[in-house]
């Protein structure tokens, strides 16, 4: 009897995990297709398939190929990257409230992009590069501040908070000194895919491919780190080396996402958290599920944000916050009960 019931438990767990992944993947494909179809210009599925196969002289070619396809791809890749980065950081720092902002990515990218847009508006096309550079610079700074014979999670979080405050001060200072030009930066800071094109896809794609692969390969390390430094080390994991590797990995994932999408703060926090509640804390399943649902959330939110209030386009960051925060609170409350 006991054997029967435990086998049943194992079955349910595997079934939940399998169906979450499968549903997620199918929904993602559907949403990406919907994201390409939906909008002011009506297009048919047939036309999308034609264009994807290489046809170039259809009616809506420019809109579909140069606007919607890269936009949907940018959304999917940034979503997957942000969710994975958050997932890795939450596991590594053993802190459910960790998100890419905690390693300085958001603050660094925000300050660098803002500085470029305000001080040298003629170079605005370089904003993604500035944001990426700023993100990596901030991560390096947090890293150096937190380093003392290794990276300690608490020191890392404190260094991240301190640096975010410092960079936030920088952003405020910039907006005071360049008050007359601030208009253009606001949209970027809110986060979104308004101007996403193929150059953005090319920018994020290599980091996504390498990052997603490396992240999915790190599940055993993360599972071990989740048990605490001493147990992980007793299981043959080099704790400090793993931490350094995982921080660099999440910095690249989050940095590349922020560079094309602006400051989208919420995905990296909420998606891994929700996935942990559904598929459990085993990173073998948590990582891929987070990637899929991160992509799904951003593609869906972006499509909704630009079609629901048509012709006004709500920045997806704002849309996400208004949608995500209450849902997150609901989940927390349900869990605490």
């Amino acid at each position: 009897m006991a054997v029967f019931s435990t086998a049943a438990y194992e079955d349910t767990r595997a079934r939940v995990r399998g169906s979450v992944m499968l549903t997620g993947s199918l929904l993602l494909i559907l949403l990406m297709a919907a994201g390409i179809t939906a909008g002011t210009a009506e297009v048919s599925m047939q036309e999308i398939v034609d264009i994807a196969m290489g046809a170039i002289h259809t009616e809506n070619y420019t809109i579909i190929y140069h606007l919607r396809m890269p936009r949907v791809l940018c959304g999917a890749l940034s979503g997957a990257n942000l969710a994975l980065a958050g997932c890795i950081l939450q596991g590594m720092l053993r802190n459910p409230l960790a998100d890419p902002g905690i390693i300085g990515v958001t603050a660094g990218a925000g300050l660098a992009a803002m500085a470029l847009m305000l001080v040298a508006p003629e170079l605005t096309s370089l904003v993604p590069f500035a944001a990426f550079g700023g993100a990596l610079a901030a991560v390096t700074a947090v890293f150096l501040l937190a380093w003392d014979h290794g990276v300690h999670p608490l020191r890392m979080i404190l260094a991240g908070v301190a640096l975010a405050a410092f960079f936030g001060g920088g952003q405020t200072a910039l907006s005071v000194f360049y008050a007359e030009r601030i208009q253009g930066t606001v949209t970027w800071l809110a986060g979104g895919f308004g101007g996403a094109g193929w150059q953005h896809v090319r920018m994020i794609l290599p980091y996504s491919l390498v990052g997603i692969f490396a992240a999915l390969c790190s599940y055993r390390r993360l599972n071990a780190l989740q048990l605490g430094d001493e147990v992980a080390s007793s299981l043959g994991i080099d704790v400090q080396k793993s931490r350094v590797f995982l921080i660099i990995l999440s910095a690249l994932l989050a940095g590349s996402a922020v560079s094309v999408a602006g400051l989208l703060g919420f995905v990296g926090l909420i998606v891994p958290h929700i996935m942990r509640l559904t598929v459990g804390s085993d990173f073998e399943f948590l990582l891929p599920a987070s990637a899929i649902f991160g992509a799904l959330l951003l593609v869906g939110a972006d499509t909704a944000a630009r079609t629901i209030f048509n012709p006004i386009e709500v920045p997806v960051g704002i849309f996400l916050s208004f949608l995500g925060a209450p849902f997150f609170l609901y989940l927390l409350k349900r869990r605490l009960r």
Partner: protein
Amino acid sequence: MSTLEIRNAVLAYAGHVVAKELSLSFVRPEVVSIIGPNGSGKSTLLKALGRLLVPTQGAVYLNGQNMQKLSVNATAKELSVLPQSAQAPGDMTIRDLAMCGRMPYQSALSAVGAEDARAVEKALKATGLLQMQHRRLDKLSGGERQRAWLAMAIAQEPKILLLDEPTTYLDIHYQLELMELVRRLHKELNITVIMVMHDLNHAARFSQRLIAVKNGKIMADGSVAEVFTKETLESLYDVSVEILDAGAGEFQQKVCFPYKAGKI
């Protein structure tokens, strides 16, 4: 069988020297308890033996080789350490946790092999958890959870098992159960068990060798009969004790009765 040795080691925590000139060797499978007052350096010593702390001078040798020169993975196949109050996500099952013990034998992408499944099965059986292997950790009692951690350590198939106060937070039932389990594992698997113990009577009853540590120095090291004496315990803890013979039927042992803090 594996040997473990610490030679002329200086152990320090955050620049503060905890122990000097430490030398100990473990050359045969036995159950060893490290005893001593709070802050004496016994946990630090266990950490150094388990490679969780690198000696600032001297070294730890595993099978005659300097442990720092071995890979972390190679060490993990010989030696397993369970820290005090380790924590795991509550939705993990006992089997999940035991499977973690196979990590030293797996690479980044390798699937779970037949050898892993066999070792996990064996560890679950040895700790009496096979029937409830799919239970979540947050649904277990303190004693069961401690056994689940032990199952993880056993699945690692170590020759040497290091335990830091394994009976803390357990009531006397689970304490006894765990100590009996430790003794059985030592006998069945022929492994060395080195543990930091607070409960002197458990230490005396379930180990063959006692190591008394005070102020970062080894005060006594020998069989229970040699170390578990009025003189040693009184100066080790700065208390007044009496060693008594006690028991019920076949269970006869020496117990220590501390009756006053400080010496009379």
